[in-house]
């Protein structure tokens, strides 16, 4: 692999000279490359100006739908009008502080947990406490918090919840499947391989359909399970198969001697796994696990097909408002930005972890 290291000389140079040197190397190394740079630069400028016109100079930041229709620019007023609905769906307006607090705490928790040095049992306990707080804030119904049923949840909290719960449950399930797939017992192996390959071979949408139309048929008469819960189960079952493949990669990377050493110590299979193999294997696969998590975060948008009000569906619903028709581009760009911020920062984090974890291993 190439290692892009900074030229040690360039550090001692004054800023202007260093920049000139960088530009010479990266923008104008040969006449042909210089031409290319200049052409591309002017093209970007040419594309950027109409965008700026649309988004800044001609945009309507304050005003009504009619003001927007008369202007040629973006209708930011639409986003301002629908901001609360897109982010929180049908959540009762008088308790809006509750989902806001829940999301704020969630982001704080993520921020706190991002350092590998803080990963400990205490952190897990803090997350458990946090999950109870989330339920208390979102659902209520105890300690004087008014009950807000799950069909009123929507927008960003719903998307975050589907992803978070999906990850937390699919991860152990995926580990079990991966262990089963590497098991020497033919029956167990066959079940695990069959499950993993079946799920990975079909689109998520077919599982969501299954959860919405087929699952009610599976249950005995009179038993009804909440639609949100069914969708969540479908997501967990789906992602577990992908998690299993990620974990399997990590298990395959652990040398056989580690198993034998565990056996020589007289440990049982589950002790070997819990104490020796999994801590090493799971550490290797943290970056691909985060990538799977990103994929799942994006995939939660599919629940709109079975009419749950996640972030994308609240946006679509906002766009159907008769007074504000015709601002799809603005609405979609806004919500795309939210998804982008989450996915991009998770991706960056995954790459950073990959770097940190590999360097710490080589020491």
């Amino acid at each position, binding site marked *: *692999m*190439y290692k892009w290291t900074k030229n040690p000389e360039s550090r001692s140079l004054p800023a202007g000279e260093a920049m000139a040197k960088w530009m010479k190397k*990266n*923008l104008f*190394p040969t006449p042909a*490359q210089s031409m*290319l*740079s200049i052409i*591309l*630069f002017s093209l*970007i400028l040419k594309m950027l100006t109409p965008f700026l016109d649309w988004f800044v100079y001609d945009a309507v930041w304050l005003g009504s739908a009619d003001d927007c229709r008369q202007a040629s620019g973006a209708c930011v007023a639409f986003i301002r009008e629908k901001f609360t609905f897109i982010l929180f769906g049908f959540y009762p307006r008088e308790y809006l502080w509750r989902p806001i607090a829940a999301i704020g705490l969630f982001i704080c928790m993520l921020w706190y947990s991002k350092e590998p040095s803080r990963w400990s049992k205490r952190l897990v306990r803090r997350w458990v406490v946090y999950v109870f707080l989330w339920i208390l804030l979102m659902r209520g119904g105890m300690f004087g918090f008014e009950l807000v049923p799950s069909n009123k949840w929507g927008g960003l909290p719903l998307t975050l919840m589907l992803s978070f719960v999906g990850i937390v449950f699919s991860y152990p399930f995926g580990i079990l499947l991966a262990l089963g797939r590497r098991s*020497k*017992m*033919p*029956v*167990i192996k066959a*079940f695990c391989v069959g499950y993993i390959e*079946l799920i*990975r*071979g*079909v*689109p*998520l*949408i*077919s599982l969501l*359909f*299954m959860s919405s*139309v*087929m699952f*009610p*048929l*599976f*249950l*005995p*008469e009179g038993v009804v399970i909440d639609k949100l819960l069914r969708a969540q189960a479908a997501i967990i079952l789906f992602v577990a198969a992908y998690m299993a493949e990620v974990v399997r990669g990590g298990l395959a990377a652990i040398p056989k001697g580690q198993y034998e050493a565990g056996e020589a110590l007289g440990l049982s299979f589950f002790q070997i796994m819990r104490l020796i193999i999994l801590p090493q294997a799971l550490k290797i696969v943290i970056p691909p696990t985060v990538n799977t998590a*990103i994929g799942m975060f*994006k*995939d939660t*948008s*599919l629940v*709109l*097909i079975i009419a749950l009000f996640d972030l*994308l569906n609240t946006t*679509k619903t906002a766009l159907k408002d008769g007074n504000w028709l*015709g601002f*799809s*581009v603005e609405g*979609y*760009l806004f*919500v*795309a930005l939210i*998804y*982008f911020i989450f*996915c*991009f920062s998770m*991706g960056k984090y995954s790459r950073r972890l990959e770097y940190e974890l590999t360097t710490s291993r080589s020491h």
Partner: protein
Amino acid sequence: MNNNEIPFWQDPKNRSIVFQVLAFVIVIFTSWYLFSNTQANLQRQNIATGFEFFTQEAGFEIGESVVEYDSSSTYFGALKVGFLNTFKIAVVGNFFAILIGIFIGILGLSRNWMVRTLSKTYVETFRNIPLLLQLFFWYAIFTEILPGLRQAMMPIKGFFICNRGLFLTVMADHPIWSWVIAAFFLGIALTFFANHFGLKRQAKSGQEFPIIIWGIGLLFLFPVLIWLLGGAPTKLSVPELQGFNFSGGYNLSPEFFSLLLGLVLYTGAFNAEIVRAGIMSVRKGQWEAAESLGLSRFKSLRLVIFPQALRVIIPPFTSQLLNLTKNSSLAVAIAYPDFVNIANTTLNQTGQAVEVVGLIMAVYLTFSLLTSFFMNWFNRKMALVDR
């Protein structure tokens, strides 16, 4: 009693048998429980199981189809249309997604900072936004932003774009065209063969094979020759506004085009990253060795680097091919009549939930297995051969 005898429970062999029997019983019991519940529920709702509905009249229209279909056709006919539409989007989509992936991936390694950054921006933007959102976005551009039929934009002569999709000028119907297309595909196959043969000869004798000239000859001159033999028809079919629609030309519906654009740009971003990582995984010494042999940058990439990178690239490419095919099921959200969309309509009309969902899964599993077989074959062909 012998002291060395292992108690029944501590013998790994016995334990493994007990575990397996237990797992088997649990799975069988759960399946039986779900099955009997389903039977009971279906009986209560008076839904007959089985695939008899296949032969019933479907009664709904389908927007676009590659085979003949109308609302008096059977459900089987409708599902066949959906299957072919899924197949069409998967083939066309994967073709362009791979092209974009290779192109943008190589640009991502350019010496030029501007090119590199543009490639990276494309990749990061498109892979970090949910595909469904991207599909809605492109579809909204068609339905909301683009003008109606009568004010259709014409960026190039004979090419119209409006809220009814794209209208392209194509060659007018003539029997020779199918032969020309066949000749083109034959040309592709022959070029591959010639390249293979040329490289082999070069490895043996050192004689260079002018593959570019041969490739141009086979890919273009051959079809042109066929075209000349067929009387060189030059009649064009130009889309023209007549009443409430265009007549002539070829129409790409907004649904198809939005789906294609979304799938290609989304999967292309992943493919580009795979290609870039694959090329980066080839050690720098290989570039230097190629350079010291006097190969140009393009030639080193084509002859030395890319064949090695392919070994890293092919397995993740396979899963991207499958992902695009599976993701094409999101068509249901923008009303492109793919298999899931038509199966969903069938489900709503007949209530045959178990059969239809099973059918959806079976179809995608078949796609997955076929792609896996093909790519495994290709991978074996490209695998490292020790000399």
